[in-house]
């Protein structure tokens, strides 16, 4: 096969056995691979009623067909499971090099089932597959685990080529905020997945392989990629903004439009002096780092000898600056970077953890909860308390336990569920949905909770890359949201990153896909696959008990206009946009796909 390998590794941890299975080409034609393929297998094999932390839940690691081939940004490995935080499907996007290495090891997919008796590590090394005891790694941070594992391999050259994906102490403690970390890259949208992995006693998966991948038409593939690199280089957002500062360049833009939330989504005024790109330049010596085969390089590492960084720092991204910084009232870049690093070391999801902190801070500010009760002075802007809380929740000792259950549980236990700014149990990514209407609708309706990377409409709403739209306007947004959601489903399934859409059109990807896979897809064919995947995910969530009531934003965004700053006076019009969105999707007024919608997409059996 071209692109795809066609092999799947099924590991049963209860029995300690594994077997290699062939993947049916038909399923790949229908769902592409990656996220689509993972969701299809998951919904076929796991009942929507499964308790996420029970051995019946499964954990699927799946790389898309373009991953590892050299296709631009073909690096993503998706992790599909039922989340312990949301009770819905979860699909984390792991960037970095793990996905490509999985392909070189000869697999498109790993399915992990059951539960090991004690801590284990799954290792795949040049066709030798082993489930090894991992007691000595349990309790260690992600980077310690990686370093120790590589040392134990006893062959430094092989160790250099081995990539790990695993959990930190947060996942071991089954915290619903726990994420999965690979090669020190935090994965995107993985809240709750770390706990599922922890419940299986699986500390990490290590891969190293040396198989070849095949592409259908190599010379055309190379030509197409040359053109794409040129295109990326001529677009200033990808060649300058992203390459220079990573997503942190969005901080200033979002702030100008009132999108950057502050103090649990209440204010919009703040000086950018301390957190803008200039501050970033002066605080850190930025070094770019790329995921596999990515010409953009938006990840920023630093070598600065800052006492807090100890030479291994990750420069904060937009997500970190928003969720762990401004939305908690913190505007000290060093503290934000530190918080981000603690998340990566402990295996916490920065968005979910930041949202939890902001909720706690507002509860304290309103005196619903006293600092004494939490035994920590979590006031807005108190970065020391924030860092302490992040370190502590992974130990799950005493009062920290309450924080570790996440923002929603915390707000409910204080009888102020309205102060939790999230959807489906997951905290909002740091974009104020009142000031960016389309993204707000996406946050409400996204199958994976309110995360922009499953439908980043701000590429058009804010950055005006393909269309010039006004973020405050609701007109035409339902269609935009649907388009971005479907596009992202396709890109996740191919194994691509969606950030380069800042410099490329979706159509630019078609020749690359076809020359690599030997297919003849047109844009519409791929969009139909995206729609199929979105609907399949939707039907799973509905069967798991979600309803259209889960497609709303917290009251604050609909009833309280933004109090000050550039976005002053804006409210979210999500409830007006939602019926049109349902209609465009071919769903009834309860948000359930109509039988004819499902059959047109070839999903009859999921009706």
């Amino acid at each position, binding site marked *: 096969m071209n692109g795809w390998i066609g092999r799947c590794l099924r590991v049963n941890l209860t029995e300690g056995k594994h077997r290699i299975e062939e993947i049916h080409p038909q399923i790949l034609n229908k769902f592409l691979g990656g996220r689509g393929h993972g969701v299809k297998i998951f919904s076929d094999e796991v009942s929507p009623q499964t308790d996420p932390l029970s051995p019946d839940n499964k954990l699927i690691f799946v790389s898309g067909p373009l991953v590892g081939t050299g296709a631009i940004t073909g690096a993503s490995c998706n992790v599909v499971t039922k989340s312990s935080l949301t009770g819905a499907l979860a699909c984390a996007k792991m960037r970095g090099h793990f996905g490509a290495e999985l392909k070189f090891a000869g697999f498109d997919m790993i399915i992990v089932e059951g539960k090991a008796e004690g801590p284990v590590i799954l290792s795949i090394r040049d066709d030798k597959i082993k489930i090894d005891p991992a007691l000595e790694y349990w309790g260690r941070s992600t980077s310690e685990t990686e370093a120790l594992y590589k040392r134990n391999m006893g062959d430094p050259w092989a160790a250099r080529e081995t990539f790990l994906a695993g959990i930190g102490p947060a996942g071991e403690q089954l915290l619903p905020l726990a994420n999965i970390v690979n090669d020190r890259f935090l994965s995107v949208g993985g809240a709750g997945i770390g706990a599922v992995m922890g419940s299986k006693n699986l500390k990490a998966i290590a891969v190293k392989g040396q198989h070849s991948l095949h*592409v259908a038409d190599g010379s055309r593939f190379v030509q197409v990629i040359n053109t794409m690199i040129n295109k990326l280089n001529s677009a200033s957002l990808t060649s300058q903004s992203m390459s220079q500062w990573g997503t942190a360049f969005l901080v200033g833009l979002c702030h100008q439009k009132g999108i950057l939330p502050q103090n649990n989504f209440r204010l919009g005024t703040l000086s950018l002096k301390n957190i803008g790109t200039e501050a970033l330049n002066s605080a850190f010596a930025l070094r770019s780092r790329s995921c596999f085969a990515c010409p953009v390089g938006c990840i920023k590492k630093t070598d600065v000898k800052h006492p807090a960084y100890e030479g291994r720092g990750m420069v904060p991204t937009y997500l970190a600056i928003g969720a762990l910084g401004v939305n908690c009232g913190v505007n000290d870049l060093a503290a934000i970077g530190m918080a981000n690093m603690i998340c990566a070391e402990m295996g916490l999801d920065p968005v979910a953890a930041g949202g939890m902190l902001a909720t706690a801070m507002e509860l304290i500010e309103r005196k619903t909860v006293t600092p004494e009760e939490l035994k920590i002075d979590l006031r807005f802007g108190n970065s020391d308390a924030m860092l302490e809380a992040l370190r502590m929740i992974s130990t799950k000792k005493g009062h920290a336990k309450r924080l570790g259950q996440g923002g929603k549980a915390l707000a409910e236990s204080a009888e102020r569920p309205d102060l939790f700014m999230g959807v489906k149990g997951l905290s909002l990514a740091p974009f104020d949905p009142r000031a960016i209407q389309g993204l707000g609708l996406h946050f409400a309706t996204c199958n994976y909770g309110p995360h922009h990377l499953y439908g980043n409409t701000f590429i058009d709403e804010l950055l005006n890359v393909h269309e010039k739209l006004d973020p405050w306007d609701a007109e035409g947004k339902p269609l935009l949201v649907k388009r971005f959601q479907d596009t992202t489903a396709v890109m996740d399934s191919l194994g691509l990153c969606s950030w380069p859409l800042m410099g490329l059109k979706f159509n630019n990807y078609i020749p690359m896909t076809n020359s690599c896979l030997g297919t003849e897809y047109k844009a519409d064919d791929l969009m139909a696959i995206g729609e199929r995947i979105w609907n399949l995910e939707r039907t799973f969530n509905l069967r798991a008990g979600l309803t259209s009531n889960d497609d709303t934003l917290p009251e604050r965004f609909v009833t309280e206009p933004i109090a000050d700053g550039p976005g002053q006076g804006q409210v979210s019009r999500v409830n007006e946009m939602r019926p049109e969105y349902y209609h465009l999707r071919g769903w009834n007024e309860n948000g359930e796909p109509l039988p004819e919608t499902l059959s047109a997409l070839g999903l009859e059996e999921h009706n």
Partner: protein
Amino acid sequence: MARIRIDHAKCTGCRHCETACSLNHVPNTVNPRRARIRVMRDGTRYYPVIAGPFVDAACTSKLFIETGDHAYDQCALCRASCPEKPYFIEAETGIPLKCDFCGIPPAPSCVRWCNSGALELVEE
């Protein structure tokens, strides 16, 4: 004579150069372990290394190079395809690999796909 200038401070570790090289030498095939350039990693730094001569025995001495505040393991930077470091022994065939500059005149595929400026073709 043309040379490839390697600026490891610019390298992002994307390994696009490895995929380019293997696609150029083995038709329709991608495999970093069949590439004549490999990217070594040391903490947050990356060193692209281009395959040089084949040697049948490893060095008996081990060296570090110190420049300023950095110490480099010379084995990591070494270009030899050597039994100690199985990086430039082609996977699946076992043949030792050596960079051929992608033909005459040199048209290095790795440089073309390196977007960070870490690899550059310079005329002297």
